[in-house]
């Protein structure tokens, strides 16, 4: 577990010089009356895809509003590409595109009009805005539905329009709140593919706020876990889900015990994992990997997958939640960790 002290910036993965860092939060605190919604949030988000996760009421939406300069902070500061949203909110928003979780539209506008309107509000000239709206909607596979009023569109289509509206002005930082809500599996995959393309092919920084840990694990480079207004966990997905060993997990169908024997006979250290968890083994070089395939053939074991052993992100999430509960209740963290899912 990589619990992070909330008062220090948490460089995730990748080094970025101060002014170039897309997003840097230092001790961001927001209170509504006596209620503290964000409590000294300090985190840095470098280019790539970062997942912002947390239970309901963790303060994710308030954090997004703080980044946009919509709320006045009680303490701390936010910097977006070196710009302070509290002092130059419009300059900050010019570089940000936001897909809100809530359904939002301007009543009476069609999909393409909506995207064009968003582009014009971001400063694009009228003709250019229309051309760009069509281009982005094409990329989002919006089809002819774009000519229908947004209120009459399906949830998935509205999500596409909202996404197109968020990226139509070519922002450097894209913030998405539950971007796969209401999408069917095919559309969900396509949407995640677009996010990956934006990040990898166009160098965008993407911050995805979501509850779907599977999405986070599949596309995000980094993760920030927010619980009750505090950052409880931040780091690269590989780092967070790693087991601290260089073991590989082999899954498949066949006699597992026999496979372990054969692997040992081939000089590969291996052990069986209970409850159908496959076999954990160490194969440091190509020769060892060849030995794994030979052992599997000898044991009559049909291999389905061989991958670095990772903890499911859900386990990491639940363990961090339990640790956060314990920390807030004053319970020793080690004790909680021992009860948390491995």
């Amino acid at each position, binding site marked *: 577990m990589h619990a992070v002290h909330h008062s220090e910036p948490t460089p995730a993965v990748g080094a970025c010089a101060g002014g170039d860092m897309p997003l840097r939060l230092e001790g961001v605190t927001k209170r509504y009356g006596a209620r503290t919604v964000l409590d000294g949030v300090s985190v840095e988000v470098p280019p790539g895809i970062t997942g912002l996760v947390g239970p309901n009421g963790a303060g994710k939406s308030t954090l997004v509003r703080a980044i946009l300069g919509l709320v006045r902070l009680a303490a701390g500061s936010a910097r977006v590409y070196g710009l302070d949203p509290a002092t130059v909110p419009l300059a900050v928003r010019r570089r940000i595109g936001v897909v809100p979780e809530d359904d939002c539209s301007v009543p009476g506008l069609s999909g393409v009009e909506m995207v064009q309107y968003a582009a014009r509000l971001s400063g694009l000239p009228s003709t*250019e805005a229309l051309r760009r709206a069509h281009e982005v909607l094409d990329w989002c596979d919006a089809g002819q539905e774009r000519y229908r009023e947004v209120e009459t569109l399906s949830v998935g289509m509205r999500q596409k329009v909202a996404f197109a509206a968020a990226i139509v002005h070519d922002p450097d930082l894209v913030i998405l709140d539950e971007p796969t809500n209401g999408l069917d599996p095919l559309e969900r995959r396509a949407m995640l593919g677009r996010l990956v393309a934006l990040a990898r092919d166009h160098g965008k920084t993407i911050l995805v706020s979501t509850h779907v840990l599977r999405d986070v694990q599949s596309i995000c480079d980094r993760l920030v876990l927010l619980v009750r207004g505090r950052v409880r966990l931040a780091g690269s997905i590989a780092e967070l889900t790693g087991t601290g060993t260089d073991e590989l997990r082999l899954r498949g169908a066949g006699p597992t015990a026999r496979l372990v024997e054969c692997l040992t006979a081939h000089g590969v250290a291996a052990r069986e994992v209970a409850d159908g968890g496959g076999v954990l083994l160490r194969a440091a070089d190509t020769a060892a990997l060849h030995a794994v395939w030979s052992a599997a053939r000898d044991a009559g074991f049909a291999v389905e997958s061989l991958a670095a052993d990772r903890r499911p992100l859900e386990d990491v999430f639940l363990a961090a939640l339990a640790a956060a509960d314990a920390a807030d209740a004053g319970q020793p963290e080690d004790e909680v960790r021992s009860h948390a899912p491995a």
Partner: protein
Amino acid sequence: MPLHDVGYRPWTGTPRPRGAAGVIAGTGIRLAFKSRWLRRVLLFAWSPALVFAGGFFAFEQAVEESARGEPVSPTRRLDSFGTIGALVADSLGGRLDEPEAARRTVWSRLLLAFMRAPQAVLLAVVVGLVAPKLIAGDLRARAWLVYFTRPLGRTDYILGKVLTLAAIVGLVTLVPALVLWIVGVLVSPSVWVAVATSDLPLRIVAAAVAVTLPTVLLALAYSSLTAESRIATFAWFATWVACWIAHGALTGADMAAEAARAPTAQRGFDRLLGQVAGDPRLPRDGRPPLGWLARAAGLERTVDRWSWLSLYHAQGVVQAWIFGIEDRLTVVLPPLLALVAVALVSLVILFRRVDAPARA
């Protein structure tokens, strides 16, 4: 993938630093005109201009006939435009033996009557149709998320909405009044009328602003207080009706008190009928015949001490001041301050409310 899909391409243009208010206004106006009812009301709103244009024509005919030395009197005969023009001039306090002064008086009063009587009422209807949805609709559809995640602030948003409504209100007040002035000039026998009344377009603009600003801001403030446009619509019309009733009741009480003090005074139809019939028992008190018309239209110089209570009446007094008909500061100041107060309070409400969900 569609054939025309060129993939995601970066945008390399330069964004315009300003102009969001204009974009909001342009889109708002276009969306408002999707309403069939608004289009109908706007079409209807131009019809009174025809009647008033007839008034200008008749008056200028009377001036022309008077200049030719023809005897023009309201009671002479009723088969010429000049006679009708004389009637109009008489009722609005213009003396045809002084054509220049009469023209100034009659034109100003006709324009004021046009802006007050039919247009101000139609304006309330138009605003009631358009304004409630402008912000309440955005709140309901969470469109504030569209606006306030973009590079625009509250001022841009409010300005955009104000411009939207002001443009539509202008189509009921400012534009028809200006067109009426142009038509008045065109139907006059002499184009020099344009020079003689050249200050009127500016006065029309000022009078339209005096109506538009407080009206628009108040209606938008109501719209920003709720996500239900129906409630905002109700509040808007209820305010007009309640203020009107309050003003009417208090003014009525004043008039009753005045009548009790001078029970023998000639009033209303009695005086009118007496003067039209040439009743020698009715003394001419210097007031023009058909002066009740001017009083009904609010054009007569009366001390209406409750006008500040009602948006409609307050605007009327201020407009009368702008057109040079009312010049007593004690009469103008209370309604003027009331309108300024309404505008300021509405503005404060708007600034506090429009992005409240974004800050919550």
